[in-house]
């Protein structure tokens, strides 16, 4: 479960106040909103990458508001993937496991199978297509078995057929891992294809959107 209580944030260009929402355990939530309205800022705050002015963040029963990004154990996929260009695909996938002192070989193999990227292991990240890079970024975030997965506009830069393919991949991840997911996007089709819970950030507030 992700629970955000009365979160207040300020950036150079906007302020968000009293942001509150809950994503139930195992659910796939999609947070919609116009570009630049603060969706990424909320994700960064949940990850611990952006200081908040007030409010609290819970992951399950644990309050993580004051914890470092590493201690929150969140799988995070930024919009630009941010793959490590000095490492190959296998090393990217194993990075979080090594950082946490966990065994990597077997888990990286599992992730490779789950995401269909085993044949990319020896490749550098520079030559990957958009869809391949997206799968590697997802695999890297999932490898250390996070309780929560945060996805920032993961499919916006992909063409339509690759996006459909990635919808299947994301559904498959959800079925196989049961990870609680918060997916930020401005694309309605992402919400239609994937979401159990749809939230909308509008006018500085997050509201649930009920399907008809």
């Amino acid at each position: 479960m992700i629970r955000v209580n009365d979160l207040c944030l300020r950036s150079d260009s906007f302020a968000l106040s009293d942001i509150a929402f809950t994503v139930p355990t195992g659910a796939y939530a999609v947070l919609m909103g116009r570009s630049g309205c603060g969706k990424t800022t909320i994700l960064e705050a949940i990850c611990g990458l952006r200081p908040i002015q007030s409010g609290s963040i819970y992951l399950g029963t644990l309050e993580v508001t004051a914890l470092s990004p590493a201690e929150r154990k969140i799988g995070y996929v930024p919009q630009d993937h941010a793959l490590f260009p000095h490492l190959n695909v296998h090393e990217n996938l194993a990075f979080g496991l090594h950082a946490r002192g966990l065994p990597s070989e077997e888990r990286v193999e599992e992730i490779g199978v789950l995401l269909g990227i085993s044949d990319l292991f020896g490749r550098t990240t520079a030559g990957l297509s958009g869809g391949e890079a997206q799968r590697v970024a997802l695999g890297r975030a999932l490898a250390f078995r996070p309780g929560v997965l945060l996805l920032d506009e993961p499919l916006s830069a992909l063409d339509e057929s690759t996006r459909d393919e990635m919808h299947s991949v994301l559904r498959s991840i959800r079925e196989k891992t049961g990870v609680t997911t918060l997916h930020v996007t401005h694309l309605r089709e992402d919400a239609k294809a994937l979401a159990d819970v749809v939230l909308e950030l509008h006018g500085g507030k997050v509201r649930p959107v009920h399907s008809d």
Partner: protein
Amino acid sequence: MKTHPSERPFYLALSVLGGGYALLVVLMIVANVAYTSPAHIIDTLRQPAIQASLWLTLWSCILAAAFSLLVGVPMGYLLARTKFRGKALLEAIMDIPVVLPPLIVGLSLLIIFNHFRIGGVSLEQWLNAHGVQFTFAAAGVVLAQFSVAAAFAVRTMRGTFEQMPARIEEVALTLGCTRWQAFRRVTLPLARRGMMAAFTVAWARSLGEFGPLLIFAGTTRGRTEVLSSSVFLELSVGRLEGAVAVSLIMIVVAVGVLLLVRKTGGTRI
């Protein structure tokens, strides 16, 4: 380069203006080469004083560049990645050695070491009592070179870190790294080319340094003489041929190091 006929005057104008400078650089080197001969350069290289000067130049420049990198990486990172009170002042301080006349750097070092007092004695006297000598010593050569070169290393490293997306480090943090681990495992490997460039810029700057050395370290033959001061010493006794030969040796050393760095680091400086 294939260009549309209508664009040719544009590129021709750029080539004439920029090419004029390239021509000047080539003319300077050709003038030096034409003024001397290989035999003369070999004779100059056989002089024990010039050999000592060459070795002191090489190791002092390497040390000054290494120390410059040691401060350039952390300072460049802080200036590129963080906001803090007094940052504008710190940026201005970091630019002072770049704009300050080199002679003043040497004079300032001389005053620091000989007029700042620790327990009733000057800093230099205090250091001497502990077995270290800077003023008019080889360590002073390195310090004088470092004082200016480090500012260039800071600038280069700041540019390197500014071009590197902070997002990559942030992802490393979410994957389980501490700040130190993210810096060591992600930031530094990605900054490798920038570090190579910063080292080379600092090295080249140290090679050409003369004013601060003259005042702070002196130009004692066999002790604090480096190639730039060798040129000065040769000129001061009216041996223009010797000065030109040493200049050519400096050009060869500088170009050799630049080519080596490009080959190993693959970077454009």
